[in-house]
C-alpha cells in the first residue's frame, strides 16, 4: 500500500507591477550547499522539495518525479533572447538549465538522493502524469519511496506570460511548488491509491460505494465541463480551489497539497479522464 507521509505547499500569487518574491532567504536554511548558477525554477524546486523532506528519513534510492507544464520558463526566455535577439551563444549554465531535468539534479544533490530522477509534463495535468508514473514504479516495487513534485514558475512581465499561455489579461497568476512524499507500507499515514476505469459508470459506482460525509471531490480541469458538473451534483461537492484563486498550469497539485497541509479531514478523490480515454481516480484516504 502506498502512503502519503509528508507534503509541502508553496503558492505565491504574483501581482501586476510587483516584483517576484525573492527565494534566496528561505533557501539559505534549506540547502546543504550554496548552489551557484541556478535559476528560479530550480530555486522553486529546491524550496518545495526540501520543505517536504524536512524531518523525514529519505532513502538514498528515493525516486524524484518532478512535473511541470511550462518548466524553467524564465531561463528559457533569457536563453532565447541571448540567441535570437542578441545573436550570442548562450552561456553554458543558461543552456544546461533549459532542461527540466536540471532541477531534479539539484534536488537530488541537495537531499543526497541517487535513485530515479524524472521530469514529466502533461500540459494542464502534470500532477496526474507525474503521480501516475511514481505510483506505477511503487506498485511494481522499483522504488519504495517517491518524492513527487510539481513546480510552476512565473516570468515577468506578466502580460507576456499570460499571452504565452493564451490567458485573459485579468487572470491572477501564481508560482507554485507542491510536493508529496510517498512511501510503501508506512502505517500511520494517509493511503494513496490510483484506480482506473474504462467507463464513467464504473467510476461513479466506485465513488458511491466509497463516499463518506465530509469527503472532498476534485475534478481535474481537463475534464469535460458537463462530466465534472454531473459528478459534483451527484456527490454534492463543491470544487476544491486554491485560497487565492490564482492560476498556474498545474492547479491540481496546489489543490491536493493545500488539502493535505491544511489539515483537512476525510477522503479526497481527484478525478480525471475523458469518455474516449477512460478515467483515473486518485484516492487519498482519511
Amino acid at each position, binding site marked *: 500500500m502506498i502512503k502519503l507521509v509528508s507534503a509541502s505547499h508553496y503558492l505565491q500569487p504574483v501581482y501586476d507591477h510587483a516584483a517576484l518574491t525573492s527565494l534566496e532567504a528561505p533557501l539559505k536554511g534549506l540547502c546543504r550547499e550554496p548552489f551557484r548558477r541556478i535559476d528560479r525554477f530550480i530555486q522553486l524546486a529546491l524550496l518545495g522539495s526540501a520543505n517536504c523532506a524536512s524531518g523525514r528519513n529519505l532513502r538514498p534510492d528515493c525516486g524524484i518525479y518532478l512535473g511541470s507544464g511550462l518548466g524553467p520558463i524564465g531561463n528559457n526566455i533569457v536563453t532565447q533572447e541571448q540567441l535570437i535577439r542578441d545573436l550570442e551563444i548562450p552561456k553554458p549554465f543558461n543552456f544546461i538549465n533549459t532542461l527540466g531535468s536540471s532541477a531534479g539534479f539539484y534536488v537530488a544533490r541537495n537531499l543526497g538522493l541517487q535513485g530515479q530522477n524524472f521530469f514529466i509534463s502533461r500540459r494542464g495535468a502534470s500532477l496526474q502524469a507525474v503521480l501516475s508514473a511514481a505510483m506505477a*514504479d511503487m506498485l*511494481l516495487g522499483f522504488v519504495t519511496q517517491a518524492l513527487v513534485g510539481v513546480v510552476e514558475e512565473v516570468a515577468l512581465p506578466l502580460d507576456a506570460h499570460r499571452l504565452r499561455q493564451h490567458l485573459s489579461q485579468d487572470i491572477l497568476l501564481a508560482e507554485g511548488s507542491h510536493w508529496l512524499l510517498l512511501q510503501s507500507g508506512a502505517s500511520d499515514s494517509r493511503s494513496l491509491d490510483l484506480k482506473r476505469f474504462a467507463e464513467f459508470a464504473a467510476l461513479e459506482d466506485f465513488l458511491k460505494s466509497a463516499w463518506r460525509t465530509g469527503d472532498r471531490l476534485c475534478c481535474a480541469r481537463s475534464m469535460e465541463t458537463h462530466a465534472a458538473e454531473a459528478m459534483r451534483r451527484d456527490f454534492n461537492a463543491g470544487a476544491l480551489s486554491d485560497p487565492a484563486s490564482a492560476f498556474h498550469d498545474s492547479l491540481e497539485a496546489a489543490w491536493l497539497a493545500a488539502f493535505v497541509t491544511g489539515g483537512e479531514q476525510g477522503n479526497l478523490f481527484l478525478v480525471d479522464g475523458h469518455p474516449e*480515454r477512460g478515467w483515473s481516480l486518485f484516492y487519498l484516504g482519511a
Partner: protein
Amino acid sequence: MAGAYIRGVGLSCALGEDAESCVSAMQRMQVRPVRLHLDEFDEPLQMPYYRIPDRSELFDAGRFERLLPPVARAAVAQAGLTPEEIHRLPMFIGSSCFSVGLSESRYASALVQQPETAIPMPLCGYQDIAVILQRTLGCKGDTYTYNTACTSSANALLAALRMIELGWYRHTLVAGAELANRTTLAGFSGLQVVAETLRPFDAARKGLLMGEGIGAVVLSAETDSANRLRVIGGASNCDTWSVTTANTDGNSVAKVLNQALHQMRVQPRQVRGIKAHGTATPAGDAAEALGLRQVFPNLPPVSVLKPYLGHTLGACCVNELILYAGALLHGFLPATPGFETPDPALGVQPITTPEPAPDGHYLLNHFGFGGNNTVLALEKIAP
C-alpha cells in the same frame, strides 16, 4: 518480468526516412554528416551535422509538423492496431528540444515584423509533439512527456513498459523527436564538446556530433509468434557528481547496469551485445567504459550507433533502439565507424565490422545531463 513486444516502428534520421532503409544503410556502414554553417552569431559556428535528408531548409518552421506524422503513422500501421486501439493509444514522448525551433523562428520573425510586441518563447511547454501526434493518429489517450536530456526517450520507454506490465495499457506509442534548432546547436558549441569527427571510445576522441532524428515504437503486451523482439526491463538512476556527466570513476554507470541485470535476472555472461551510449566526449566515454568494465569482466560486442545518425539527444534511445533492434532482426550486430585506436585507459573496443547477432539478451545504454543514467534490456527471442 513479462516485458513488452516491439510491434511497430517508424524512423527518420540521417540514414533515411523509413526504418528499413535506415537499417540497410547502417549495414552498409553509410555515414553522411553535412557541413553546417551558422553565420548569424557574433562568433559564427561551423560543424558537421547529421540532418534528416528532406529537401527543406534546416530551420524551416514547417518541418516540425511535416516530419513527425509519417514516422508515427508508420509505427502504428506496422503494429496493426484496430481503430479502437489507436483511439485510446497512450503516448510517451521523449525529447530535449520539443518545439523550441518553432519558437525561435516565431520570435525571430516577430523581432523583424513587430519588434515592440515581440515576446521571447512565444511557444512554451512540452505539449506540441503529443498534440501533433494525437491529431495525426486520432488518439485520445493519456500523454506522458519526458524531458531528462539525452535519456528522455529512454525514460519514456521505461515508463511505458512498466505501465504495460501493470496492465494499465495494452499498447503504447513511444516517440522520440529531435530536430535542428539554434538553442541546441549553439548551446553545445558553447560547451565546447562538439568535434569535427566522431570517434567513440577512441584514444583520439574529442567530442560529439549532433544529429536529427524522429523515432516511434509501438510497445504491446501481446504479440503474434512472428515477433521476436521484446523489451524486458531497465533501470535508471541519478548521479549528482556533475550536472553534465556521470562520475568518471564509472561507479554510477556500473550501478545502473547492475540494477538492469538484476531486474531481468540475467548474469553479465548471458548478455550477447551492448549498444553503448558512446558520445565520444572524453569524460562521457570514460564514465561509460569504466562502468562497463566493472560489470563485465569479459565484454560482449559493443556497438555505437551515433556515427550513423549523430547524437539525437532526447530522441537517441528510441532512434538507436529501432536501429539496433532492426540489426538484430537482420542477424547482425552493427559496426562502429570512426573507432580506430583503442584507448588503454578505457579498455573498451567497439566492433568495427558487423558480427552475427545470436538470440538472447542485449543492453542499451543512455546517459544524460542532470545526472540521468538509464539502461534498457532487450531480448531477441528464438524462433
